[in-house]
Every structure is written in C-alpha cells, then in structure tokens.
C-alpha cells in the first residue's frame, strides 16, 4: 500500500513483515527512528519477536550473532561509530556464515564528531565479507530488506542494507509498503542449518590453525563472488512479484548515448538524475551508472557497460585517507590495465559529514571533467577555511 511515510518508518514496517525472530539494537542517530518503530511494533504485538535492548552496539551485534546461531532470523540496525564498534563482530558473523541482515543509516565517522550523512562507515567494513546493498530512495530501502533476508539465507552471507542517514531515514516520501501476504509469498520462513541444538551437538566458531585458515578465507571470498547470481535472481524475482525494479547489481540512466558517465551510489543518484535531465535539455549527453551492490562489486557489469565510455566520473561520499576515492579505485580496477589507456576516470569526493550536494556542485563537476580528467577533487571544498600549510 502506497503511503506518504518517513523512510525509517517504512523500513521498520517492512523489516517487521520479514518476521525476524530476534531484533537487537542500540540507539544512535540517525538510526533511532527505525529501531523505535520496530520496538513499538513488537511492543504492540504486531510482530512476535524478541526485542533485546542492549548496552552497546557491540552487544547488539553479538546478540543477533547468538540468536542467528541458535536458528533465529535476526536483525539489527546501526550506523557510524556504532558500526565501527561492532566491526569485530561484523567480521565474525561473516566468517561464521550467519545470514543476518543489518540496516546501516549511513553517517560520517569521528573525529570530528558528525551526526550527518556520508558513507565512510559502511565503506570501512567493505572487506568484512558482508554483502552491501545501497538504496537510492526509501522505496528501494524498504524493498532491499525483503531481498536481503532472502539473499542472506540462500548464500549464508550477512547483508547490510545501506541508506543515507537523514537524507533517506528522515525523509517523508511515498513508499509502497507491501502487505504481509506479499512478503510471505516472496520470503519463505527461515530454514536454519548449522545451529546450536542439544539434539545435534555442533561446534560453531571453532578456531583454525594455519593448516586451515587460508582456505576458510578463500571459501568466503568465493562465496561473496558467487552471491552475484543470487543477488540478481532475487532482484528479478522481486520485480516479478512486486512489479517494480529494485536492487540487483547495477542500474543505469540515459547511459547509451552518454559522452560523460557519472558513477555513484545511494541517495545521491536522485539528484544526479535530475541534473542529467537538465543537461539533456541543454543538449549535453550525460549518463549514470548506479552501483546497487557495492559488495560483491559488480566489476564485470561496470566493464561491460562502460567498455566504450571514455569519460567517466565517480562521485562518492567516502574516502580512503591517503589513497583517495574508494569507489573510484574499484571502478578503475574494473578495467583491464592494457586496453584503452586514454579512458578518463575522474574521482570526486562529495557530501562528507552531511555537506549538501547541490545540482550546481554536480554540474560544476561535469563541466570540469568535460575539459580534463580529475585525479581527485573534494566537491564544494571551501579553500578559504584552510590554512596555506594545510592545503
């Protein structure tokens, strides 16, 4: 049913319809509305689940780890420092192959403290063995959760659904929240394997000496790569059942004829699409490649779709300090070294710590790369605030 609804609330409603058995979370802005809503959904009996109020994100992650290992469909939500505090558990969950789903309300990382949006937090855990799906808007954010549980449980890999903090979590916009029957028809009940159960004693979380560890990581890496199939399949099935596209590996917008291709992910693509239309009216051919699944990274798709594109600009809300654009380097790595040496792949860092990204900023970016490739630029950087020695 289509509603004008806050993003967090939409996500909470949809997660509840996925019938998690155990929810555990610790409050942190801007994730709070999601877990508040879930708490009340459990509280008023609409969802038969255990909601565990813990004393830290670390414990929240640990509780869902334990719950999942005991056969529960388990869910949590966090962001920023919370996610970093969890990071030890995050790696552990992946290594133990527990199909847990998290919502990440993307937010900047201290210091300095910033409660506002960017994507450095989930980026920091991109190598943890979690599937990371990025939502463009609240409809997709909601839809991705339904898909996430299915993907996780089929691949035995945990999934983070990333949605930009405030920009999506706190935005009211129309969202079609599917009814319970639809969700049930798409998402079967959790059939756990490998759980702790006295009837079939199992050892979970054994330690591996050097004879075995390397192989366990190889297997996990391959599992991430292989999950591509499932992610695409689930997205297609979703489209069939619910009649709308969301998720998958990548999406494109006005790409075919584009001379300049913008690559980005998350809520920023909405603004970019508006810009693309404006520029089109002005006679400029600009297209968009949107990364939906950041991990596993859609290397082949990126290459195949952009084989013949010579001017590419990546704009992202995170940075590998001392290295530059993270998404940008993933994109650059997607093209074989040898061919098309003259292809330009520019890298822009934008919107860190909630800095507003306007169409004008993006327009400036496009105009710039039309002239020359940009190795790395912070979009909308106020040089006047920076001492000479710090430049």
């Amino acid at each position, binding site marked *: 049913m289509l509603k004008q609804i806050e993003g967090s609330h939409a996500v909470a409603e949809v997660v509840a319809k996925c019938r998690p*058995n*155990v929810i*555990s979370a610790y409050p942190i802005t801007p994730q709070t509305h999601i877990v508040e809503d879930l708490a009340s959904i459990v509280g008023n009996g609409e969802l*038969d*689940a*255990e909601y*565990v*109020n*813990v*004393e*830290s994100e*670390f*414990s929240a992650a*640990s*509780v*869902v*780890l*334990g*719950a*999942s*290992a*005991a*056969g*529960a469909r*388990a869910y949590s939500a966090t962001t920023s420092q919370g996610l970093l505090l969890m990071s*030890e*558990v995050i790696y*552990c969950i992946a290594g*133990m192959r527990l199909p847990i789903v998290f919502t990440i309300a993307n937010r900047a990382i201290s210091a300095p403290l910033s409660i506002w949006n960017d994507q450095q937090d989930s980026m920091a855990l991109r190598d943890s063995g979690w599937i990371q799906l990025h939502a463009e808007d609240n409809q997709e954010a909601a839809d991705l959760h339904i898909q996430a549980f299915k993907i996780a449980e089929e691949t035995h890999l945990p999934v983070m659904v990333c949605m930009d903090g405030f920009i999506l979590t706190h935005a009211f916009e129309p969202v079609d929240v599917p009814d319970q029957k639809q969700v049930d028809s798409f998402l079967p009940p959790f059939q756990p394997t490998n759980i*702790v*159960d*006295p009837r079939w*004693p*199992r*050892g*979970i*979380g*054994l*330690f*591996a*000496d050097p004879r*075995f560890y390397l192989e366990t990581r190889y297997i996990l890496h391959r599992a991430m790569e292989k999950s591509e199939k499932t992610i695409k399949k689930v997205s297609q099935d979703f489209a069939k059942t619910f009649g709308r596209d969301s998720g998958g590996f990548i999406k494109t917008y006005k790409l075919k004829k584009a001379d300049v291709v913008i690559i980005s992910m998350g809520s920023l693509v909405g603004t970019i699409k508006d810009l693309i239309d404006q520029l089109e009216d002005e006679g400029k051919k600009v297209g968009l490649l949107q990364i939906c699944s950041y991990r596993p990274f859609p290397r082949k798709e990126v290459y195949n779709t952009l084989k013949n594109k010579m001017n590419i600009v990546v704009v992202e809300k995170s940075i590998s300090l001392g290295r530059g654009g993270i998404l940008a380097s993933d994109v650059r790595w997607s093209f074989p070294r040898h061919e098309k040496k003259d292809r330009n792949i520019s890298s822009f860092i934008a919107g860190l710590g909630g800095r507003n990204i306007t169409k004008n900023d993006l327009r400036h970016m496009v105009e710039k790369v039309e002239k020359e490739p940009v190795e790395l630029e912070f979009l909308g950087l106020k040089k006047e605030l920076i001492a000479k020695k710090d430049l």
Partner: protein
Amino acid sequence: MMNQSAEELNKIEKKDLFGSGHRACGGCGQALAARLVQDASGENTIACVATGCLEVFSSPYPDPAWRVPFLHSLFENASAVASGVEAAYKALKKGPVNIIAQGGDGSTADIGFQSISGMFERGHNVLYVCYDNEAYMNTGVQRSSFTPLGARTTTTPTGNKTRKKNLPLIAADHGIPYVATATVDDFRDLQRKVKTALSIEGPKYIHILAPCPLGWGHPGELTVQVCRLAKDTGLFPIYEIIDGKLTNVRKIQTKVPVQEYLKLQGRFSHLFKKGGSPKVIAEIQEIANQNIERFNL
C-alpha cells in the same frame, strides 16, 4: 524455582561432555572445572564460550573436545551471545535448555565486563561461569583485574600492586537471583551449585577458582591442593548469594596462614626470597583476615 530434590542436587555427575583430547596443560584447573560444569549441566546444554585458554585448547578444528553444543565468537561477548541464544529460544518457543556462558577472568571481568553486566541487568535466563585463573593465561600470563596482590605476571614482573576485583559481589549487586563461588577441589559442591543455578530462572553467576599450573608456577599435581589452601587461608571465600542473601558460607575448619598458600606458587616466590617483602605478605594476610571477618568464614 528450586525444582530439584536435595539428593539430585548433590549427585556427582560424570558424563565427559567436555571430553578427552583437549590441549590443556597437565593438571589444568580450567579444563577440570569446565568438565565438572558441563557434566553437571548435562546434555541439554548450550555452551557459549569466550575466547581464551579454554576456547583455544578445547575447540581447534577438526577435533574439539566439546560434546555439548559449543558456540564461540569473540573475547568480550560471551554474555551477549548467550543472551542472543536465549532470546532466540524464547522467540522460537524452543527449550527449555541450559545456556551457559563461560570464560576466563579476563573475558569476564575486564574486556567482557560491560557485556556481562548487560546480560545480568536484562535478566536473561543464562548461567555465567567464570573460570578464574587470575591472569591472561592464553596470551602468556599477563595481569588481569583478577590478579591478586603480590602475584607476579609477565606484565607485573615485580608483583601485582592492586587487589583483586570482587566480581561475585558486583554480580550480586545487579540483583540477580543466584551468585556462588566454588573451587575445583570440591567437585560435589561445585556441581551442586551448577545444578542449583540452572534450576533458577534468570541470570546466574558462578565464580570458580581454577588454578593454572603454568601461570601460578605450581606442579599440575597440586592444582586441587592449591584450591584447598586458597579456601583455608580465607583468600577465596566459598559462599552463595541467593536473592541477595548471603548463605551457605563454607566455614574454615583450621585456619591456615597465607604463606602456606603463597609458598606453593612460583608467582609469589619473589615474596620469600631474601630482600623479599614481608610487608606484602602481611597485606595479603590482611586481605584473608578481612574475608574471614566479612564472610564469617
């Protein structure tokens, strides 16, 4: 609450649910304690184990020593993981099952302190067992907040300057229904306490003194005797706190001076060498005396 007969509680259990083939040192108090605990709890048990000596020597792939379901993830989160297991069993309407979170003193009182406090405060139906060997043994005997005054560890080479954190009382102050202390020498008492704890709904805490021959510097054959001296000197009081009330305090039959306990252990040997520290020994005796008075041992 207490649904078991006294004789059931006092029965000794030997089921080898924490089986042979673990890699602990000879005479390991923790291995002994772990078996006594799992055997008392029985097959219908889920062990949530913190990283540490116990976990490392008992759970290597492909031949772990556990025969009950075993779940380990990290050093500091056994309590939270157990909370999750318990929540899952509630949510899935499964059980009843004995969920036992367990770990060494470091994972309990130091890095896992927040986690265990949370578990207590939330009232999960979980038993937490702390195997107290008074230092970080897994990593090579570094000081923990359970390391007693005067004890030498690799990070307190001249002897620990502080007194031991008193977790049982801290646990009791969470208002949980059952807290007990025990040692491996009195397996009857230890197993009775495990069974009693498991017969009570809510969070439970059992604190077991588990000597580490390597870290304490005594021959493995003395593990049991060292425990006895710890009790008879008054350095390790044995008691239960049920619903906040101190009960079943073990009386010392013949009080032993702390020297007898300290002398057996290499970690205290520096206190006796010439230029040793009678002052420290006196202070340790003072600690024992305070216990004797406080718990009326």
